[in-house]
C-alpha cells in the first residue's frame, strides 16, 4: 500500500495537480474576492469590517487543519517509519504557520475597530498564539537538528504535545469567558451566520485550501528533487 507513496510515482502526479490548481485558482480567487468584498452585505453592527472575517476564519481553520495533519503524519511516521511523511510534514509546517499568523494578524486588525483593542489575553487568542509557537518549534526542529532520525523523534513529540492545544482552541470560547465570540458555524444545528455571508466564506475557504495545496505541492516537489539530487551524488 505504501508503494504508492514512493517519490517517483508521486512526482508526475504532483506536476499534474499543480497544473490543475494553477488553471482554476485565479478564477476562484476572483469569484471569492468579488463575493467577499463587493457582493456580500455589510454586517448590521460591524459594518464593512465584517469582510475581514472572510480571510480570518478560513486562515484560522486551515491553521488548525494543517497542525492536525502534521500530528497525524508525524505519529504515523514515528511509529511505522514512512519516510515520505517526513517530507510532507516538512512542506506543510510553514504553510500552517503562515495561515496561523494570518489569522492572528487579521484578527488583530478586526479587533481594533470592533472590540476597541488590538490584543486581549483571553483564552482563544492566547491558545492561538500557543499554536503559532508550536509551529515555530516544529519548524525549528527541522532547521536546527541534523539527522533525520532525531528530527523525526523530536518533531513528533512537539506535534503530539501541540495537538493537545487543538481542542483547547476549539472549545476555549465555550469553557471560559472570552472576549472572542463563540463559533457562528456549528457542526450540528443551525448556523448564526446569514447565508449571504456564509457563501463567500465557503468560497474563500476553497481559495485558501487551493492556495495551501499549491504551495504545499511546490514545496513537496522541491523536497523530492532534493532527495533525487542527493541520491545522484551518492552514485
Amino acid at each position, binding site marked *: 500500500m505504501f508503494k504508492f507513496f514512493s517519490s517517483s510515482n508521486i512526482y508526475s502526479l504532483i506536476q499534474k495537480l499543480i497544473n490543475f490548481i494553477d488553471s482554476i485558482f485565479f478564477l476562484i480567487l476572483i469569484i471569492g474576492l468579488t463575493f467577499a468584498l463587493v457582493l456580500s*452585505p*455589510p*454586517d*448590521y*453592527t*460591524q459594518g464593512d469590517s*465584517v469582510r475581514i*472575517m472572510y480571510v480570518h476564519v478560513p486562515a484560522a481553520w486551515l491553521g488548525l487543519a494543517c497542525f492536525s495533519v502534521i500530528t497525524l503524519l508525524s*505519529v504515523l511516521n*514515528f*511509529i*511505522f517509519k514512512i519516510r515520505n511523511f517526513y517530507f510532507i510534514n516538512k512542506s506543510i509546517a510553514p504553510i500552517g504557520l503562515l495561515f496561523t499568523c494570518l489569522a492572528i494578524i487579521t484578527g488583530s486588525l478586526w479587533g481594533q*475597530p*470592533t*472590540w*476597541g*483593542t488590538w490584543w*486581549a*489575553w*483571553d*483564552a482563544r487568542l492566547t491558545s492561538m498564539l500557543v499554536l503559532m509557537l508550536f509551529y515555530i518549534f516544529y519548524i525549528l526542529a527541522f532547521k536546527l537538528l541534523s539527522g533525520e532520525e532525531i528530527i523525526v523523534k523530536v518533531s*513528533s*513529540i512537539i506535534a*503530539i*504535545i501541540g495537538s*493537545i*492545544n487543538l481542542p*483547547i482552541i476549539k472549545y476555549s470560547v465555550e469553557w*471560559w*469567558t*472570552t*472576549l472572542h*465570540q*463563540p*463559533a*457562528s458555524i456549528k457542526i450540528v444545528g443551525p448556523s*448564526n*451566520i*446569514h447565508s*449571504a*455571508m456564509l457563501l463567500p466564506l465557503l468560497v474563500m475557504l476553497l481559495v485558501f485550501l487551493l492556495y495551501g495545496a499549491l504551495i504545499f505541492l511546490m514545496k513537496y516537489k522541491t523536497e523530492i528533487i532534493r532527495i533525487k539530487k542527493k541520491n545522484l551524488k551518492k552514485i
Partner: protein
Amino acid sequence: MLTKKVKKRIIFLTFIFILSVFAVFFILNSLKKNILYFSSPTEIKQKEDIPFGKAMRVGGMVKKGSITINQKNIQFTVTDFENEILVSYSGTVPNLFAEGKGVVAEGKLSDKNFFIASRILAKHDENYMPPEIKEIIKKNAK
C-alpha cells in the same frame, strides 16, 4: 503483526501523550481563575473575597435603556439577566458599544454594585447578518 519495535514506539508516544494531557489539565485547572477573561455580575455578587480596588474585568450585556451620558462620564448597567452592576466610565467607547450588546469593562470595583472602568471593550456576538435582515427580525419581534 506489529513488530516489537513498533509496539515500543506506540507505547512511548501514548505515554508522552497521556503525560502531557495530564500536565496541561493540571496547568489549566490551577490557572482557572486567570483564564477567565471577565467575571459576570453574578460571580461578583456571590464571591466572598472580592478584591476591591484591584484591576479586574466585568462583562455582560449593557442593560437596555440604562446608558446615561453626562459631561464628565458615561454610566450604564451591566447585566447577566440575574444580577447587575453599575459601571461608570469616562472616555471614548468603541463603535460597537450599544444597549443590548455585550461589553467588557476593565477597571476597579468600588463596591459590589459599582464599578469604575478605565477601559471599555465591546464584545461582539456570534450573529452575522445584513442590516435589512435585522430590520425584519426587529419588526417581527414587535
